[in-house]
């Protein structure tokens, strides 16, 4: 059932999968030990930037638009809690906890992602 050309497809698939795994792990491990900064972006504009490790009380952020999303932030994690878009892909993504984690609501063009911010000191003055 397997034919010669299938091996080419399979080889291509394995190379793609391996390359994407390597790329993502490099991306996630860059800037380790950094602070976790969650960024909420709507229509390609940053509307909020939160240091989620520094959040003590859970809080909700409402993003209004064509559809409405409610973002829930707790210590060390963030998620889409509710959305009135039809597909609910963003809500089903669940909690984001690590750098590189991301949830997207395409109908509303809203995205949350966790970025790292280096703890390194830029300038010290006396």
């Amino acid at each position: 059932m397997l034919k010669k050309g299938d091996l080419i497809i399979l080889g291509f698939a394995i190379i793609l999968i391996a390359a994407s795994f390597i790329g993502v792990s490099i991306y996630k491990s860059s800037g380790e030990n950094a602070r976790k900064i969650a960024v909420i972006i709507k229509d390609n504009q940053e509307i909020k930037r939160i240091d989620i490790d520094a959040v003590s009380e859970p809080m909700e952020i409402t993003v209004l638009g064509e559809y409405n999303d409610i973002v829930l932030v707790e210590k060390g994690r963030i998620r889409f809690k509710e959305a009135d878009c039809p597909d609910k892909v963003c809500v089903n993504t669940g909690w984001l906890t690590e750098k590189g984690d991301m949830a997207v609501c395409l109908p509303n063009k809203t995205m949350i992602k966790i970025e790292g911010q280096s703890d390194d000191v830029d300038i010290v003055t006396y």
Partner: protein
Amino acid sequence: MNKVKKTILLGVFVSQALILSIIESWIPIPAPVPGVKLGLANIITIITIMFFGFREAISVVFVRCVLSSIFGGGGWMLFLFSISGGVLSTVVMSVLYKSGRNKFSITGISIAGAIAHNIGQILVAAFFMKDLAVAVVLPVLLVSGSIMGFFVGLVSGFLEGALRRTRIFD
């Protein structure tokens, strides 16, 4: 095959593809990333490529995406999202199918189509979100897409045999 019969068969294909994508949306898939799905509607795309050709398959995919966006909601963004994956995978599968069935099995063609579908969607998402970081879901999507592509290819092979025996395409 006369024109009326062809139109009717393609219409039936569109409705089958729509039903499959509705049934698929009822099946919850536990996945750590968004965008993982079964891709059952791809069975119809493959069958259309086999029995008709590239132009007809693209038409079926286009009409299916338009109708599922109207019925399912989500507006322009979700439409562009589904059409991008659909068109890219149809192009890839048609090219592979035309280049010779003795070189590629239906399963192989289906896997290639699933991978093309995932890549097309990520490209569109990255374009609209203006952020390549959406590609972090690609590893999981490629693995699940390849697995589902395999099964969709198997089913399409069985369906092809059954349909050939009915002789409705003669």
